[in-house]
Structures are given as structure tokens and as C-alpha cells.
């Protein structure tokens, strides 16, 4: 996984609540999606007009916001399905940090598997950040520093956010969960050995042919 340590860039305000995973990755791309080009369709219902042209009112289509690396969204962002394509797409658009009052749980977890940092902040703070991000033509720079858990706004205000130490380390060092757990496989073998005597029916599954 790629490391996420410090980033600087524009933040796109998207003040709409409950943006679900069907908006982020429309279902028609689910069967063919891959991590490299799914972003071409990300936010499609908001991003394009019905004739296929770009919607000039969508924030990421506006001059100055096209290269946003932060997204400041309404609450419950990423609710809905488990599709990880939602995070791949956002990442593919260049976004590395999403800020909202709350997130869909699965989306929130998926972010950390893809070097994207979701930050939860109180509604009032999110509103203030949106205001700062909307202030200009979009060339206001925000800064993120994962090591110090801080977000610095264009006006120089510094906000500290919460992140658990394990997730912080994984982002900073680009660590991958699978490799880490596999190193500790002996613990799983020990667990299964003991559990098999307590709950044999879990392991001795019948079969249907």
C-alpha cells in the first residue's frame, strides 16, 4: 500500500448528506470495474449531465477544484454497499483525504485499505471547513500531516483529528493488513485447535453435493 504522510492541496466542498455508494460507483460499472479506471465513472450522476457532458455545477468540474486532494462532504458519506470501487474511484480522482461529520462504516474501513484517510469532525467544524474551501476559486491550500494528526486550513487554523495508532502507523508506513496478519498465523492455528474442541460443529461441516 502507498504511504500517506503529508499532503497539501485544494479541498472540494460537497455539502450534501447521505451520498451513497450507488452515487459514487453507479451499479452499471460494478461488474467491469477495476481499480485503475473506475474513477472515470465516479460520482457519475452528479458529475455528468444526461447527455454525457460534464455538469458545470459539480464541484470537481469547477476550475480550481479539478485537482482537489481533499473532499469535504455532508454527513453519512459513503453509506450503502460494501463496494470498494467507491474508494478506488475517489482515490483515482486524486482525493486522499475525505472529511465529514460521519461515514458509512464499510466505506470508512475500506478507505484505510487504500491509503485514503477519512476524518470525522463535528458538524460545526465541517461547516467551517466547507466555508473556507468555498471561499475562493478553489486555490486555497489545505495541509494534512498524518504524523501529528493535524489538518491546517488556508487561514492557518490547525485542527487535530482522531485516528487510532494502528491505522496511523499503517498509513504512515504503507503497511498492508494481510501481510501483517499472516506473520502471526500461529495464533490462528492455536485458536482453531482450542475452538475445535469447544465448537466442533463449526469445523465439521456437512456437505451438500
Amino acid at each position, binding site marked *: 500500500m502507498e504511504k500517506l504522510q503529508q499532503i497539501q492541496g485544494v479541498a472540494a466542498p460537497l*455539502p*450534501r*448528506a*447521505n451520498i*451513497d455508494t*450507488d*452515487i459514487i460507483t*453507479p*451499479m*452499471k460499472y*460494478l*461488474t*467491469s470495474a477495476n481499480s485503475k479506471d473506475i474513477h472515470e465513472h465516479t460520482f457519475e*450522476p452528479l458529475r455528468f449531465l444526461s447527455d454525457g457532458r460534464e455538469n458545470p455545477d459539480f464541484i470537481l468540474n469547477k476550475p480550481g477544484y479539478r485537482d482537489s486532494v481533499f473532499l469535504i462532504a*455532508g*454527513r*453519512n458519506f459513503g*453509506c*450503502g*454497499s*460494501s*463496494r*470498494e470501487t467507491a*474508494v478506488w474511484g475517489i482515490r483515482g480522482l486524486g482525493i486522499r483525504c475525505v472529511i465529514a461529520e*460521519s*461515514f*458509512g*462504516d*464499510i466505506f470508512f*474501513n*475500506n478507505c484505510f*485499505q*487504500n491509503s485514503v484517510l477519512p476524518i470525522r469532525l463535528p458538524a460545526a467544524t465541517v461547516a467551517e471547513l466547507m466555508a473556507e474551501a468555498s471561499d475562493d476559486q478553489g486555490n486555497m491550500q489545505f495541509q494534512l500531516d498524518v504524523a501529528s494528526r493535524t489538518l491546517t486550513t488556508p487561514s492557518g487554523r490547525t485542527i487535530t483529528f482522531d485516528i*487510532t*495508532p*494502528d491505522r496511523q502507523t499503517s498509513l504512515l508506513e504503507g503497511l498492508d*493488513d*494481510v501481510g501483517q*496478519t*499472516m506473520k*502471526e*498465523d500461529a*495464533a*490462528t492455528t492455536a*485458536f*482453531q485447535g482450542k*475452538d475445535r474442541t*469447544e*465448537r*466442533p*460443529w*463449526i*469445523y*465439521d*461441516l*456437512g*456437505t*451438500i453435493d
Partner: protein
Amino acid sequence: MTQGKTLFDKIWGSHVVRSLGENLDLLHVDRLLIHDLSGSRALMDLKERGLSVRNPELCLSMPDHSVSSLPGRTLASSPDGVRLGNALRDMSAAAGIPHYGIDHPNQGIVHVVGPEIGFTLPGCLLVCGDSHTSTHGAMGALAWGIGSSELVHVLATQTIRQRRPGTMRITIDGDLGEGVEAKDVILHIIGHLGVAAGIGHAIEYAGSTIRGMSIEERLTICNLSIEFGARMGMVAPDETTYAYIKELPLAPKGEAWEAALAYWRGLPTDEDAVFDREVSFDAADMAPQITWGTSPGQTVAVNATIPAPDSFVEAELQGNAETALEYMGLTPGETIAGTKVDRVFIGSCTNSRLSDLRRAAAVAQGRQVAANVTAWVVPGSVQVKTEAEAEGLHEIFLAAGFEWREPGCSQCVATNGETVAPGERCISTSNRNFVGRQGPKARTHLAGPAMAVAAAIAGEITDVRELAPIELEGNT
């Protein structure tokens, strides 16, 4: 004295392989369900990384999302069926994972098949790359949906890293009124709590109403947990659960059954256990529901009026309501009943089990689908289909003008190409009415099976209680 434990605490505790600190645990996964959409991809990723499946015998795979529901279908009947179906079959075979292919007598939607064959058991920890995995919690299991990176992790290690959520108990007491189904109960709850109320929580559904429900009704309730943000929803196992499981093909047998039963009886929440949040509902307040918007929380009783955006206090919700009403083509202040419909879809992991089809058939019997409506019944599994046919339910549907189709996700998500046309209005027994869920610009109203049939018959949204008071009895 030690504090009592919740059902959730007990199952979580019994699966900790290792604590990773900070409320983060490495948990053993007892059961992994794999489907054609997320599963094929994860198995491919695993292979590309040179890893193998650690415990294939604890996994089960089947195609459901991409398969066609056309009568007589093969994998080739849907655009991606062959590619995804064959990939899943071949990669499952290579890994030693049991697979129910499209022609298998147990194929179906993963969340219908798992419980009906006893793959899902009380006290087990089950995951699947699908957000409606919460369904399985109805069996007294701890079950939730995961993303594709997590899926690779489970395949490779048979464990999952998970942060312990908070606990929330939703207690529903009392008797449900005539014509009120499990689907109405959960929509009513989501409508009241809002679509973000369950975030970060594992839900336990409790109370006399839940106790009185069949397993299939509980599955419907738990299915929609994710629609208010909860990854896990569960019901404590009881005599109803044990009776349901006892003869299932994958259920423990003989001595193992007795041992399992003794273990399961210890799972329900202790009297003195404390939840982080408690809410309660009175079943008597609940009426048949129909959603009016593009989020499952945007729901009303069928005899109510379409809400005006300014009836919501918060600006954000007002904005959402405005956008939703425009998308849905609805006018605030009008009654929702009487809205013309084009399609009816009875199916999905929410409402495609035998008891759902029985209730639907009871309303359809002796009636005709309106001329302007295309109505489908898509059973959740081959087993449901076979049992329904043995009872003659398909004949009732066919005689009434419904299409009787093959099992799969079908129009719930339309990844198999079975879309609702732009601008068409569909009454669907599924769980998501998101923008574009059933196809670009499709307008979805969520409802229970009886309400869906009532809409098909009347050609418009209709209160099932006015349509069919007699036929509704005695069919759960």
C-alpha cells in the same frame, strides 16, 4: 458481581484470536460466503499476490448478482454471467471451496441460501463481501459485510481485523396490526431513527414482536440493518431458531446437535447486560410502509401524504427531500396511494423467501395484474422456487399475470442487466431505493411483498388492507 453480557459481547468474545489494542481485535471467521461480484475479484487478487485460501472448507461460493432470472436461463443469458460465473466456479474449484453453480439445486442469493441450508448457525461469525450480510444475524449469528481488501484478508488468514462497535438494542413490543409485515416494521424503524442512527453499532432486535416472528421475518428485519448504518443486526436464538435449524442439511447432527444446542442456549443477552443505546417501539404504531424518496429512511405509512421538504427541521434533510421528490417525480401534500406504477419486483435477499411468496400469493390469488404493470416474482433460491412450485404458488402468480422467474439478485441491483427503464416507477421488495439502483433514472419505492402485489393489481400504490382483508390471514 460481574456485569452481564450481551449476545454481541458473547459472540465477539468467543472469536478473539488476538487483541490488537485500542478496541481492535483479530477475530476468527467461522463462515465466509462468496458471490460472483466481489468474490471472483477477491479470489483473483489473492492469486495475483501469490496467496492461497487458508480454510476453503469454511467457505461457500455461488453466483447470484450477475445471473439472469429469465426462465430457462443459463450463465450466457446475462451480459456478464459467463465471465463472472465461470471465474467464480473455476477459482472456487482451484481453491477447494464448495461451489453451488447456476444449475445446482442450492443456488440462490447468498443471504437466502446461507440460512436455509444451515451454513449460518447461531453463535457463528460470518462475513461476506456484501453489505446485506447483516441478514444472517437473524439466526443469532454475528455477521457483517466487508470490502474487497478485507475479503482478501479473510481468504488468506481466516480472520478479520475489526474494531469493536458499540451496542444498541431496539425493542419492539406488541402485536402487529393486520397487513403489517416485517418489512414495514424495519422501514418504520429506519424512518423514525434516520439512516445514520446505527453507525458504529451492532444492533440487537428484541421484544415480544420479534420473539413472535418466524426466522424468515427476522431475516427481513436484520437485512435492513445496514440501511440505517449498522453493519450488524442480530436476534438472540430461541426455540424458533432451533426448530428452524434442526433438520437443515448443514446443521450439526446427533451428539454434535446436543452439544451445539447447549452452547447456543447460553448465547442470549443476560438480564443485567447494559447496551450503549436503547430504543423501543410499539408494534401498534406501525402501518404498511412505502418509501417516497431515494433513501430507505424516506418512508411513510401508505395512507399518509407525501411530505413537504419544509416539514423537515434540518436544512440538509430539506435539501435531500427536495432532490428526492424531484427524482421520484412526486408532489408534496398529495396522498402517496394512487401514484401510478409501471413495474413490480418481488424478490431480493430482503423478501424472496417462501413465506414472503406465500403472503404475496395470498393477495394475488384470483386477481389480475393491471394492464399497465409488468410484475416479476424472483424467488431467492432454487430451493425456495422448488418449494413454492410444490405448493402451486407459481400457478397463482402466473394466473394473475406475474412473471415467475429464476433465482438471483435480479432487479434488486440490476448488475445482471435486468434494469427498470428510465423514468419508470417500480414497487420493489428489495432494500435500496438509491438513485439509479434499479437502472439509470429508475424510480424505486420499497415495500413489503403484500403491498407490492397490491400495487401490481391496482396499477397504483395501494393500501393492501383495503384491497385484501380476507386473504391476508394465516399466511406467515
